[in-house]
């Protein structure tokens, strides 16, 4: 295949009359981790939901492996090889860990492979193995996040959409989860589109990054270049020049260069 794995072109998505994203384009190449950064309400989650079919866009195309998949049912999109790990985990609280993982494999029929993949998940997240029969509701936040990622993996996707995996986790757990994410990408050859507020870690694991603001893209570049950008440093990494007084409160204008 020649084109990118996922090619989002000029999508516009509305919540009722409110335009949440206005013309966003983005690509994910095979085998790549791409990060999308942005503040609250920038439209990052909407972007993922539109990609996975949970929301319909009014304009634009979502092209996956050369086929248009926008505005299709989410279950159909999932069967094409896109797994969406939603923000805030969203595990099934009253199912056990194993049952939750098996929900990820709902569309699959190859029992043996499913068993193998289940073992793979336990390999990546040993904690989940010990908790196999406990209800998901009783898991800690970090364990739930592992479960949600594991569940996404169980559908054997080509592309994994991760919505803020670091949300509400301790710094220690965050680095653990991101370690696993990049292993999944390397070892299982899963391409990943990652939405994050934690710009620092997201830019470390990804090869390219996009920055969204109020529903549009304002910047895109290789991750190491983004890490060097003045605006990213000031607005996403919290490093700023404190000025002569050492107490700068005003914000400089964003130029996104």
């Amino acid at each position, binding site marked *: 295949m020649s084109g990118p794995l996922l090619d*989002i072109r000029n999508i516009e998505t509305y919540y009722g009359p409110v335009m949440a994203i206005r013309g966003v*384009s983005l690509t994910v190449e095979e085998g790549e981790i791409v990060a999308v950064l942005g503040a609250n309400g920038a439209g990052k989650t909407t972007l993922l939901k539109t990609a996975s079919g949970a929301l319909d866009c009014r304009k634009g195309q979502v092209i996956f492996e050369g086929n248009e998949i926008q505005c299709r049912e989410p279950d159909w999109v999932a069967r094409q090889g896109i797994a969406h790990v939603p923000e805030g985990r969203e595990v099934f609280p009253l199912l056990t860990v194993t049952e939750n993982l098996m929900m990820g494999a709902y569309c699959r029929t190859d029992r043996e492979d499913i068993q193998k993949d289940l073992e793979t998940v336990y390999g990546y997240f040993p904690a989940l193995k010990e908790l196999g029969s406990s209800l998901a509701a009783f898991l800690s936040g970090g364990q739930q996040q592992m479960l949600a990622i594991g569940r996404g993996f169980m559908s054997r996707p080509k592309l994994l959409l991760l919505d803020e995996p670091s949300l509400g986790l301790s710094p220690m757990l965050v680095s653990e989860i991101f370690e696993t994410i990049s292993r999944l990408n390397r070892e299982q050859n899963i391409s990943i589109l990652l939405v994050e507020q934690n710009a620092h870690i997201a830019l470390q694991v990804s090869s390219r990054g996009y920055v969204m603001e109020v529903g549009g893209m304002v910047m*895109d570049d290789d991750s190491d270049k983004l890490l060097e950008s003045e605006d990213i440093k000031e607005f996403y990494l919290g490093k700023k020049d404190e*000025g*002569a*007084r050492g107490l*700068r*409160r005003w914000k400089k*204008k964003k130029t*996104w260069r």
Partner: protein
Amino acid sequence: MTENTGHSSFLVDDCDTIPKLFLKKTAERGDKTAMREKDFGIWQSYTWADYRARAFEIAHGLLSLGLKPGDVVSIQSEDCKEWVFADIGIMLCGGIVNGVYPTYQPNQVAYTLMDSNCRFLFVEDEEQLDKYLDVEEELPNIEKVIVFDWRGLRGLKHDKVMPIERLYTLGQEYGRDNEGQVESIVQNGRPEDLALLIYTSGTTGMPKGSMIPQKYLVFQTTINVDFEQTESDQILTYLPLCHVAERVFSICLPLKSGCVINFAESPETVARDFQELSPTLVFAVPRVWEKFYSRVSTSMSEATWFGRTCYNLGLRAASARARKLLDGKTPGVVDELKYRLANALVFRNIKQLLGLDRAHYLATGAAPISTSLLEWYLILGLSITEVYGQTEVGVVTTTRPKPLRQGTVGEPIPGVDLKISEEGEILIRHPYQFDGYLNQPEKTRETIIDGWVHTGDVGEIDENGQLKITDRMKDIIITAGGKNVTPSLFENELKFSPYVSDAVVIGDQKKYLTCLVMIDKENVEHHAQMHSIPFTDYRSLCARPEVVELIGSELNKVNKKFSSVEQIKKFRLIDILLTAEDEELTPTMKLKRSYVSNKYNDLIEDMYRGPSR
């Protein structure tokens, strides 16, 4: 109201300086509204009495800090009421005002403060204060820095820095003990006294500080020849007050006529402020007029079939009237009726949308404007007055309403002598012009020769006695083929395209002409979105072949209007989104030709590689 616009005298209402006029007018107007400013989103009014009281407090405050007549005081702020209070306050106690652009970088701030030997500095807020603090060591002559907005500075301990409230208090105390001092300073003021320093954006070398005497400002209150202004008029103040044009329109004219000035909330909200306020007097630079037009043409491309048809029909129906007006004839009854109809059905809504529905005096200046644009406004029923001037001489020519002569900058206002030199340069002489450049006697001698100010503009006087500007003298391009080309002509036609925000034509000593184009972000983004052209940021938008093609087709449209030597053979897009802080742009957002040609030399060289198409 009596006014004296005669050649021999520069008295306005018997006053020969701005402070005298201020004392007289504020006493007369008292509790009438002088200005409005938004506070937490609500317009608050300030009366002429408030204006006077604040200006006095600042004058007294500065006197108590030891200001001597002739000292330079700088104001470094976006437009706001305190800017105006401080401006008049400084003049009341005999100081000289130096406006510093709030978009300046610290090193530029340091240069003007040093060159002007400034003693006191007013800054807007924390952000502007930090620029001073960055270069504090280089500026030992600054004695006090007064901050308009103290938010975020509560814990600051600095001997030289204080909030404006403190200055007000000092002023009140000083005023109680020294009653009548300011009045006597004002009464002793002479029209020849320096009022301002205006630094002009140096496209070559460092900025030069023009020395502006009081009589210059008094004279400038009379530039609106043929237009009556009253106390019920409203002005929106949104261009930098450091620039001579906004100062004349927002400080000088209201002093004489009593019209109300309204401060735009911020440079980003100007469009909304226009809509909300619908000012009756509008001064704008061509870029703003272009922006209004492109907003309308973009929303038309999005409109329903019905809406678009109505708009096009309206334009067609009303254009006959505009043509007649342009030809100096009186439009017939039928033309007038057609216009009225189109106005009632279509144009009125457009004007309301732009906030121009109440405007009865519209003026453009500070840069050349395309005639196609003026014609579009005229079709809508908005006749725009063109004024011409520069910092050194103020506004010196203006078009008159009857007969309308668009495409020219009109004729000299009473009191101004104008002639064209043998080289074609426009020369201006009047008794109220500037006194030369501060600390630059040789530059002054080059500019004022035998009393005539050499403007650096090339122009001609047409058969009707109207002045036509060709271009800046140093901008005229002589191609390798020896052909003289005036770049601004092409640039202005190109800027009429809603997709082009600014352009610089290049080709001096070259085989053919080329052009650097800055696209209009909003409209090109909109176009890309409508035509499913994927892009992410500004750079990627400029790199899209479809966008390059779009600009190319706009360029070709303009090319058709020019002869083959004057046509643009190649162009490149500037793929960095420039802001007012960038050195490529003047504070009024024009591209600086020489700066841009140096900075983008690689792009330019690239256009002269390989064959021309």
